[in-house]
């Protein structure tokens, strides 16, 4: 972290170095939630629009459940409740990753279902009329059209996921937030909350802002095409 020390002096250089290195874990958790939640969300979306009533009910129930439970509650349940109740050890990264995956998948599948449903029924019918099965129709006709519509809001939701990871500090996941809090709680001069938290906020901002610009750009692109 010599670079940071040269830039900000030994004290702040060290602090920022610590925060940045903790940011890696924020990014890992975000990516895990995004890909895990995305994959699960994709399956749920297919369930939700499938011809099978049982699969539709399952998906609907799942989405209701995980959209109605606050993320913080999910973290408590998985990080503290389940380990205590079953007397098992769940590492914080696993509890946090699972909670965020459940949370993300429910929201993502709603975004994607909305995009799929915005495709005119005439497209489904044309696909059926040329002899495509439900899955062929979905994969080759409907999803490619829905994909373009859904990209901006999907990227936008990544921002929610990144911000959501900050709650994982509550179950001792060692991310940016937790290190920020730890440093702010220390009695060191110059590490007061009003100094540390703006730095933490700035790091979150620099993760989210580019995504927000990207989402805007994609939205404009989708409108123009």
């Amino acid at each position, binding site marked *: 972290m010599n670079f940071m020390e040269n830039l900000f002096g030994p004290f702040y250089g060290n602090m920022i170095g610590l925060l940045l290195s903790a940011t890696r874990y924020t990014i890992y958790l975000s990516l895990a939630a995004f890909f895990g939640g995305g994959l699960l969300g994709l399956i749920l979306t297919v369930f939700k629009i499938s011809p099978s009533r049982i699969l539709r009910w399952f998906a609907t129930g799942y989405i209701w459940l995980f959209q109605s439970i606050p993320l913080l509650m999910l973290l408590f349940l998985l990080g503290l409740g389940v380990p205590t109740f079953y007397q098992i050890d769940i590492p914080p990264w696993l509890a946090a990753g699972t909670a965020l995956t459940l949370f993300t998948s429910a929201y993502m599948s709603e975004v994607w279902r909305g995009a799929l449903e915005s495709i005119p029924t*005439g*497209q489904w*019918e*044309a*696909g*059926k*009329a*040329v*002899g*495509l*099965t439900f899955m*062929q129709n979905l994969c*080759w*006709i409907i999803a*490619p*059209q829905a994909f*373009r519509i859904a990209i901006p809001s999907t990227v936008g939701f990544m921002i929610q996921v990144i911000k959501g990871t900050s709650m994982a500090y509550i179950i001792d996941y060692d991310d940016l937030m937790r290190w920020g809090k730890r440093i702010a709680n220390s009695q060191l001069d110059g590490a007061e909350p009003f100094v540390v938290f703006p730095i933490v906020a700035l790091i979150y901002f620099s993760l989210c802002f580019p995504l927000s610009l990207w989402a805007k750009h994609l939205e404009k692109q989708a409108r123009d095409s």
Partner: protein
Amino acid sequence: MNKENLAISISGMSKWYDDFKVLTDIDLSVTFGERIVICGPSGSGKSTLIRCLNHLEEHQKGSIVVDGIELYPGMKNPELVRRTVGMVFQSFNLFPHLTILENCILPQRRALKRSKEQAREVAMKFLERVKIPEQADKYPRQLSGGQQQRVAIARALCMEPKIMLFDEPTSALDPEMVSEVLDTMIELALSGITMLCVTHEMGFARKVADRVIFMDTGQIIESNAPETFFSQPKHPRAKEFLGQIL
């Protein structure tokens, strides 16, 4: 006539949307090669009837047999019947994310498992037949309505169906584009394919139809050769209808 030799055989068929009965006791037999025009006032169930023939709609009572395949509510493999029945829609319904050529190739590749080369060859053959091979690499939105509808006809023909269904194919077109689509349909009719067309184009009916079917309030109330139907309609509703559109 033996039932197996019929392209379509419908008997005692009824359909409801919830409590509302849209089709009542339909009986209709169509032999291979027959060309049928279905007309009637809007809301009479014409479109619903032909949409039942490729299982885009389910009927609740009676039986429908299409090319030897019995259709029933909740049937497992409706795509089997859809591969022998082509359909052209009022609003074209081309796939906007695919080029004209890809629109014609994709269904062949996925539903019939044809090779890329073969699918391409067939697609070009039918695009030439509807006289737009030069538009092959464009996207649907770059074409006029008439051209899009001709592509839709080509796309359906690429599956080499035995039966073609047309659901008001010229109703969404600007007047100057109607004739190019009708010419394509007439050419197709003369090729001997089985056709069922829901249309108000009575000139087309006179020219190619073997039979004109008149529907009202979900029933077939008249079925006759076009000369007879146009000159001596029997039913008062048919007379009134013809009076309005001719």
